[in-house]
C-alpha cells in the first residue's frame, strides 16, 4: 500500500467529480451514497496503509513537480509515517460516520446534491493536507480546506447570517494564513527548499531566534485554523452551517489541522523554548477563556463550538509542554466524542424543527432515548470521567503540563498553565452537564415543539452509537497505561517524537489522575446543583451577576471589537482612499484637462475680429525682431 498512497485522496476526489458533474440533475439522492462509499474506500485504504506497516523512515512518495523556476523548485509529494496514519484514520473514520449521518439529516434539503459535492471535496483537501510532504502543498490544501469550510458554512446561502459567517470564517482563516505564508517564504529563503525532510534535517545550523520567528509565524497559521484566542471569532459563527458540517469540519478535522501542523513541525518548535511557551500559553488561555464563554451560551451548537475551542486550547497546551503524542491522542479522542455531541445535538435540532435555542428544549430524554444515552456518554467523555476516552487523554495532557512546569528547566509558567487547564476542565464539566440538563432533563419548556419531537431515523442514530462506542472504548484501548499505551508506542516511532521522561513516578501520575477526576465530579455536581434541582430559567441565572453574565454572553465583546475595529477601520480607509482616488488622483488628470481648455480659451480671446489688433501684433512683432537685430548684430 505504501507504493500507491494516492489512492486515499483519489476516492473523495472522484466522488466530488461525479457528484459535482452529475449530482443536481441526475443523481440527486444517490450522491449521498456515492459520497459515503468513497469515504469508506478512503478509510479502507488508510487501514490498509496502517496494517501495511508504516515506520518513521518510509521514504516520501513524490507525486509530480509543481514548479521549477530558477532556484525555486517545488514538488508535490506524500509523507508516510505514523503521525500521518493516525490523522488519516481519524479524518476518514469520522468523515465516513458524518457522511452516513448526513444522508438522514439532509434528506429533505433541496440542494442535497450540492452538499454531497462539497463534503467529499473537503475530505479530499483534508487528506491531502495531512499527507503532503512539503510546506507549499501543506499551505495549498490548508487554504483549500478553508474554502470548503466557506462553501459549507454558507450552504444555506439564502440566510444572510450564514453568508456573513462563511465570509468571516474564510477571512479569519486567511489572516491566519497570512502569517503562515510569511513563515513558509522565510523557510524557503533560509533553507533553500520547502520539503519537510530537508528543512527538519538542517534546523540545527540556523540561529534559534530565526527559528523562533518562523515557529511563531507558523503558529499564527495554526491559531487561525484552530480558532485559538485572537482568531477564534469565526468558529462560533460557523455554526450557521448544517450540523454535520459543524461536526466534521468544526469539531473533528479541519480545526485540528493546526494541532497536526504544530505536531508535524515539532523540530522547528522544539529548538526555542520561547516558542513552546507561547504555544502553551495561548492554548491554556484559550481553554479557560472559551470554557468561560461556553457557560453563558443558550444555543446548543454555540456551547459545543466554544467547547471545541477550549479543548483545542488544551491540545496546544500539551504541544507547548512538548507532549506531542498526548496532544495527538487527545485530538483523536476529542474528534470522536465531540463529533458524537455535535451529531447528537443535530439529532435534537432535527427533532425540534431546527430550533437551536436550549431555552425551548427540556425533558427530551423520554422522547429520544438513543440520542440521550449517546449524548450522555459523549458528555461524560468530554468532562473526563474515569473509564471514558476523555479521561485518559485529558488526564495525561494535564499531567504533561504539570511535569513540564515542575521540571527544572525554569518553565514554571507551565504550572500556571496546568492550573488554568484544570480550571478549564472544571468549567467544561459544568457547561457540558448544564447543556445535558437543559436539553434532556426537567420539564419541556416548549410543549408544542416537545410534542412533535421524535427519535431520529436509524441512519442518524447508528453513527451516534458507533461514535459512542469509540468515545467509551477508544481511550482505554489505545492509551491505557499512561505513556505506554498503543498510540504512544506507535506515534513514538515517529522520528524523534519527544516522549517526556518525567512520567516515571507512578504515584505522581495516579495522584494527578485522582485530582482531575475530582475536578470533573465537582463540575458535574455543581451543574446539577445549579440547574437540575431548581430548573432556573437562563434569566434567573443571569440575575445572579448581570454584568458578568452579559460579559460572558457577549463573548467578551470580542466580536463587536473586531467588527467595529478591524472591519470598520478597513472600510473607513477604503472610503478615504476611494475619495482620494476620485478627487485627487483623478482630480489631477481632470485638472490637466481643464487647464488645457482654460489656456486655449485665453488664447482664443486674442482673435477679436478687429483687424487693427492683428496689425498691431504684426507691427509689435516687427519691432521686436528689428530690435533683436539691432541689439544682437
Amino acid at each position, binding site marked *: 500500500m505504501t507504493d500507491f498512497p494516492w489512492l486515499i485522496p483519489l476516492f473523495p476526489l472522484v466522488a466530488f467529480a461525479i457528484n459535482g458533474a452529475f449530482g443536481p440533475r441526475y443523481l440527486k439522492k444517490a450522491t449521498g451514497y456515492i459520497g459515503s462509499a468513497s469515504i469508506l474506500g478512503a478509510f479502507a485504504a488508510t487501514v490498509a496503509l496502517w496494517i501495511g506497516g508504516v515506520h518513521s523512515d518510509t521514504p516520501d512518495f513524490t507525486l509530480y513537480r509543481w514548479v521549477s523556476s530558477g532556484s525555486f523548485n517545488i514538488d508535490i509529494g506524500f509523507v508516510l509515517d505514523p503521525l500521518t496514519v493516525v490523522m488519516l484514520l481519524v479524518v476518514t473514520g469520522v468523515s465516513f460516520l458524518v457522511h452516513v449521518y448526513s444522508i438522514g439529516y439532509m434528506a429533505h434539503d433541496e440542494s442535497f446534491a450540492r452538499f454531497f459535492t462539497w463534503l467529499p471535496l473537503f475530505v479530499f483537501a483534508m487528506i491531502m493536507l495531512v499527507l503532503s510532504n512539503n510546506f507549499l502543498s501543506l499551505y495549498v490544501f490548508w487554504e483549500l480546506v478553508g474554502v470548503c469550510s466557506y462553501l459549507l458554512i454558507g450552504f444555506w*446561502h*439564502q440566510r444572510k447570517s450564514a453568508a456573513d459567517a462563511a465570509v468571516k470564517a474564510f477571512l479569519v482563516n486567511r489572516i491566519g494564513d497570512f502569517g503562515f505564508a*510569511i513563515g513558509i517564504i522565510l523557510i524557503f529563503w533560509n533553507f533553500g527548499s520547502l520539503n519537510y525532510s530537508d528543512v527538519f534535517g538542517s534546523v540545527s545550523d540556523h540561529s534559534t531566534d530565526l527559528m523562533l520567528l518562523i515557529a511563531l509565524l507558523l503558529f499564527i497559521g495554526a491559531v487561525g485554523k484552530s480558532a485559538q484566542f485572537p482568531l477564534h471569532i469565526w468558529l462560533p459563527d460557523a455554526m450557521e452551517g448544517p450540523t454535520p458540517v459543524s461536526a466534521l469540519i468544526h469539531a473533528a478535522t479541519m480545526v485540528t489541522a493546526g494541532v497536526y501542523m504544530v505536531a508535524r513541525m515539532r523540530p522547528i518548535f522544539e529548538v526555542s523554548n520561547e516558542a513552546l511557551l507561547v504555544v502553551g500559553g495561548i492554548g491554556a488561555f484559550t481553554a479557560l477563556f472559551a470554557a468561560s464563554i461556553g457557560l453563558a451560551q443558550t444555543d446548543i451548537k454555540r456551547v459545543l463550538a466554544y467547547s471545541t475551542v477550549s479543548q483545542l486550547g488544551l491540545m496546544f497546551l500539551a504541544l507547548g509542554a512538548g507532549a506531542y503524542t498526548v496532544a495527538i491522542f487527545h485530538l483523536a479522542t476529542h474528534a470522536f466524542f465531540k463529533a458524537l455531541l455535535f451529531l447528537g445535538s443535530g439529532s435534537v435540532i432535527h427533532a425540534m424543527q431546527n430550533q437551536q435555542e436550549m431555552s425551548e428544549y427540556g425533558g427530551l430524554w423520554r422522547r429520544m432515548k438513543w440520542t440521550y444515552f449517546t449524548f450522555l456518554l459523549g458528555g461524560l467523555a468530554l468532562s473526563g470521567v474515569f473509564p471514558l476516552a476523555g479521561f485518559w487523554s485529558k488526564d495525561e495532557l494535564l499531567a504533561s503540563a504539570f511535569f513540564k512546569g515542575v521540571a527544572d528547566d525554569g518553565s514554571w509558567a507551565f504550572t500556571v498553565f496546568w492550573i488554568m487547564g484544570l480550571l478549564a476542565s472544571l468549567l467544561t464539566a459544568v457547561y457540558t452537564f448544564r447543556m445535558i440538563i437543559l436539553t434532556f432533563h426537567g420539564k419541556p419548556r416548549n410543549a408544542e415543539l416537545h410534542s412533535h419531537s421524535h427519535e431520529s431515523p436509524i441512519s442518524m442514530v447508528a453513527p451516534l452509537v458507533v461514535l459512542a462506542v469509540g468515545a467509551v472504548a477508544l481511550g482505554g484501548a489505545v492509551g491505557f497505561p499512561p505513556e505506554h499505551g498503543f498510540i504512544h508506542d506507535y506515534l513514538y516511532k515517529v522520528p524523534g517524537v519527544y516522549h517526556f521522561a518525567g512520567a516515571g513516578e507512578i504515584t505522581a501520575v495516579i495522584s494527578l489522575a485522582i485530582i482531575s477526576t475530582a475536578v470533573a465530579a465537582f463540575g458535574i455536581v455543581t451543574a446539577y446543583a445549579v440547574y437540575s434541582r431548581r430548573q432556573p430559567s437562563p434569566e434567573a441565572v443571569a440575575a445572579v451577576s448581570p454584568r458578568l453574565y452579559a460579559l460572558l454572553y457577549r463573548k467578551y465583546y470580542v466580536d463587536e471589537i473586531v467588527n467595529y475595529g478591524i472591519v470598520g477601520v478597513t472600510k473607513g480607509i477604503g472610503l478615504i482612499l476611494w475619495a482620494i*482616488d476620485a478627487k485627487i488622483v483623478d482630480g489631477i*488628470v481632470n485638472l490637466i484637462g481643464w487647464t488645457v481648455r482654460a489656456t486655449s480659451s485665453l488664447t482664443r480671446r486674442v482673435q477679436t475680429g478687429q483687424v487693427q489688433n492683428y496689425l498691431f501684433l504684426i507691427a509689435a512683432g516687427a519691432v521686436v525682431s528689428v530690435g533683436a537685430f539691432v541689439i544682437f548684430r
Partner: protein
Amino acid sequence: MAELSIIIWAPLVGAVLVLLTRSRSSATAVAMVASLVTLAATVAVIAGFDRDAFGFQLVEAHDWLPAIGVQYKVGIDGISVLMVLLTALLTPIVIATSWLTINKRVKEYMAAMLVLETGMLGVFLALDLVLFYVFWELVLIPMYLIIGVWGGPNRVYATVKFFLFTFIGSVLMLVAILAIYFNTQTFDVQVLPDRALAESLQGWVFVAFFLAFAIKVPMFPFHTWLPDAHVEAPTGGSVILAGVLLKMGGYGFIRYVLPLTPNAVDDARIWMMALSVIAIIYGALVAMMQRDLKKLIAYSSVSHMGFVTLGIFSQEQVGVDGAIIQMFSHGLVTGALFLCVGIIYERTHTRMFSDLGGMARTMPVYAVVLAFFSLASLGLPMLSGFAGEFMVLVAAFGWQYWSGVLALTGVVLAAAYMLWMYQRVMLGQVKNVAFLRLPDMNRIEVMALAPVAALVVYVGVSPGTFVDFITNSTARIPFIY
C-alpha cells in the same frame, strides 16, 4: 516558415472580410472563423515550441525601411508565448459572447475586434522597436472605437481619457526608441541587449519606457483611466481590455526595460517596488468600497497587476516567471469575471450592488461559475491566481521582506472584497423582485467560459508546465545586484 505572420495577419484579413459581409450573423461567423484560424495557428506554434531553446524561435525578418534599418521582424520566445496564447484564446470567446450583447453595427464591431487582435499579437511578436511601436499604436484605435461607439452612457469621456492617457505615454516611448537608435544604430531586439546603453542614457530611456508601460499596466498614479474605461466599455471590450491590453504594459517592461536598461532598473527598483505595493493595497482597499460591480473588478485588476510589477522589479528570476504567470492567469480570470458581469448586466441592466442580491437562487449554474472565478481571482491555491502570486511573493521576500509582507496584506484584502462582492451579488435574499425569474447561463456562455475554467485549473494544479515555457527565456535577463 511564416507561421507567426499568419498569426498576426489572419485577424486583419478576417476584419476585411467581415466588412464585406451583409447580415449580423454572417459577420459574426466570419469573425469567429478568422479568430479560430488564429487560435489554431497559435496552438500549432506552441505545440512546436522548443522549451529548452534559449533565443527567439520562428524568427522572420524582412526589410521594411532599409534606409534607417527598420525591419519587419517577428519572433516568439518564452516571454511572449503565453501572451500570444492568451490573446488568441480570448478573442474568439469575446466574439462569441458579443453575438449575444452587440446588436447595432455588428460588422464594424467585429472588424474592430479583429484589428485589435492583430495589433495585440503584433505587439507580443514584434522584434523590432519601430514595429513594436506601430502595433502599440494600432491597438489604440480599435479599442477607442469599441469603447466610444458601443460603450455605456458616459463613454466619450472614458474613451477619450483612455486614448489620451495611453497615447501620451507611447509618444514618450517613441522618443526613447529614437534615443536608443541613435546610440546603438539598430532597432533589432535580438541585437540590442549586447550593445549596452550608457548609464546616464539608461536613466532617461527607463523613465520614458516606464511612463509608457506604467500607464498601460496601470501602475498606481496612472490608473484612473482603467475604472472609467471598464465601466463604459461593452462586455467584449472590457474582457479584451482587462484580459490582454493590461498585459502589454507588463510584457513591455520584461521585453524592453529589463534587458535594455538594467542599471537604471536596479537604481529605480526601490520606487518600483513601493509603487507596486501601493498599487496592490490601494487597489484592494478602493475595490472594497465600490458600489459598481465592474469598477470593483477594475480596481481589483489594479491590485493584481501590482503583483505583476512587483514580480518584474524584484530582480529574481522566480519573480519574473511569477509575473508572467500572474499576467496569464489574471488575463484568464479577470476576462472571465468581466464576462460574468456582462451576463448579469444583459439580464438585469444594472451593475449596482444595491440592486443585485440573492442571485444564487435564480441562477444556480451562474452562481457556481462566478464563485469559481472569484475564488481564482482571490488567489485560491489549486487555481491559477495562486501560482503567480506566490512566486512573486517569494521573489519580493528575497529582496525586501517588507514588500512581501505588505503584498501579502493585499492577498488578504483580495479575499475580503471578492467574497464580500460575491455575497452582495449572489447570496442572501433577492432584493429586487424583478430578478426572481432570470434565465440562467445559456449554452454559448457556458461553452465560452469552459476552456478558460479548464486552463485556470490546469495552471493552478501544475504551473510547472507553463513555467517551463518561460524559465529559459527569463534566465537570459541580465539582473544587476
